């Protein structure tokens, strides 16, 4: 189901304890390991860029003209105040690389027949030791996900609210991501446009592109 490359424009509505904020970003993704994101709005975040190359992540701040490598404990910080952490961003989206899976049961979710998969981490140094994933049987798209710590404590939830068909693939169009340890109503994601198998020039996925 993974395309080699994809370009998307998305919105993220972060529901905080006090107010909600909307961020817009454009992302270029090459395979499962490299990506480049540029924030388009709001004004305060406009021009902020993020580059992920394999296991490394950099962020560029236009106001200081500084490129900062995000590592160590900073990876656990929230991305732009959302319920998503940098560690989540760094995760290999191809789950079979990280988890062993077995179908534990079946369920109908929002009128769609789903398999419920129990995923257990193959290695120790991983953000979520286990996951429970609801996968649409006919569209092969994830509709719901619960992410757990090693102790079995629920850490985050993902709820896909709408899917769309693009270039003969099903992809999430809107979803709610919730860090259950945080107060607030979670972070909503909306994919405004997405294009698969597009050509992404090499110079875009480089550190030099951050300051351009």
């Amino acid at each position, binding site marked *: 189901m993974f395309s080699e490359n994809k370009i998307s424009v998305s919105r993220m509505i*972060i529901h905080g*304890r*006090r107010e909600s*904020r909307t961020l817009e970003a454009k992302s270029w993704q090459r395979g499962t390991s490299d990506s480049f994101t540029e924030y388009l709005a709001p004004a*305060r975040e406009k021009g902020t860029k993020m580059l992920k190359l394999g296991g490394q992540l950099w962020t560029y*701040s236009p106001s200081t003209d*500084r490129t900062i490598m995000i590592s160590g404990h900073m990876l656990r910080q*929230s991305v732009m105040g959302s319920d998503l952490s940098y560690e989540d961003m760094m995760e290999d989206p191809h789950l079979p690389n990280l988890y062993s899976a077995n179908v534990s049961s079946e369920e109908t979710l929002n009128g769609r027949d789903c398999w419920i998969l129990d995923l257990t981490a193959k290695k120790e140094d991983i953000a979520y030791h286990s996951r429970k994933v609801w996968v649409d049987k006919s569209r092969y798209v994830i509709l719901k996900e619960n992410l757990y710590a090693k102790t079995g404590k629920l850490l985050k939830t993902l709820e896909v609210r709408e899917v769309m068909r693009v270039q003969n693939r099903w992809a999430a169009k809107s979803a709610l991501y919730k860090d259950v340890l945080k107060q607030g109503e979670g972070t909503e994601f909306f994919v405004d446009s997405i294009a698969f198998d597009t050509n992404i020039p090499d110079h875009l996925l480089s550190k030099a592109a951050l300051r351009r």
Partner: protein
Amino acid sequence: MIQFLLKGLLRDHSRSLFPLLIVATGAMLTVFLHAYMNGFITITIQSTAHYTTGHVRVMTDAYAKEAGQVPNDLALLRIDTLLGELRQRFPDILWTPRIKFGGLLDIPDEQGETRAQAPVFGMALRLLSSDSPESRILNIQNSVVKGRLPQKRGEILIADDLAEKLAVRAGETGTLISSTMNGSMAVVNFTIAGTVRFGIAAMDRGTVIADLADIQQTLDMEQGAGEILGFFQDDLYHEDRANMVTSEFNFRYNNPRDEFSPIMGTLRTQSGLADYLDLVDAYSSIIIGIFVIAMSIVLWNTGLTGSLRRYGEIGVRLAIGEDKGHVYRSMMAESLMIGFAGSFLGTAIGLAIAYYLQVHGIDFGSMLRGSTMMMSNVIRAQITPFSFVIGFVPGMLATFLGTAISGIGIYRRQTSQLFKELEA
């Protein structure tokens, strides 16, 4: 009578010297310990007030519940209005807003790449306002080790130890990486104006001091502050007034149904200091109590030894017709004289040592290296009017009790046996 007893004590050193030394030692230790513990408590209260809680502190209800985590997303907003009202309602208190924040200080190389980086704890305060009391409260001017105080926006002070660790000098640029109150990444360049050392291990490890307006802008907290601290004009904590101000403020401003309504707390009720101060008070009383008891036992023993040594003298005095009560009373009077002289001497020596430690203090810096407590590395004694009298209580009481108990033996002497005992 008193003159007679005094002459006896002065001429017979074996009667007075040892008890006098013991009383003096006890009184000295009591005075010194009291002054030192007093200094310790005062420094703890002052450091906590200056760096953490103020004498009173205003936060939002939600911030107060998680204050240890510095949740700036729950900070007070529109603080100028609140500050104006606080200054109008409680003019006897100095009100000053602060923002605490965490983050990384990143030092770039010539290409703008990271040369060195360290986690920092930041404190934003009104550094550039001429009417701000902060410089005096935190003694910032005297804490500058290298460079100078910030004179314009965009300048910060960093801990001297941190500057050495990052190999950065005054005048260089450092990039502060933190989180805005909305959780976005905040990346801002600052010029390091100077380095500071406060003499508090927790502050000297990795502190950044910045101007409030700079951090409000950096953390997207326009007109916001994590907390507003209140300090009494004389810099002393007045519990009754603090409680009164707190009750009045909370009655007027706090709304239990609004987690962002402001709430005020006193120094004593915050940071678990109440239990700590009660504990120190209790220990202080216990230590002084133990001294009184221990000295009484020692002096009782001294009294017994003295009575045994003066067994013959007392026997002769009783044999020639001196009343037992008179002998007992004269010994009690002697003990009071020794107690007074010993207490006086001990208090003088104790005060001298305490004064030395009030000026110089003892530096516990090496022991507090990993400490997170806002406590000065140098603990000094503090002499108060009470220090002048506290040594007299154990000094007089111990000699008096010691002699009173050991002197009971006088009443057990049988007149019929006296000559037999004296012949032996």
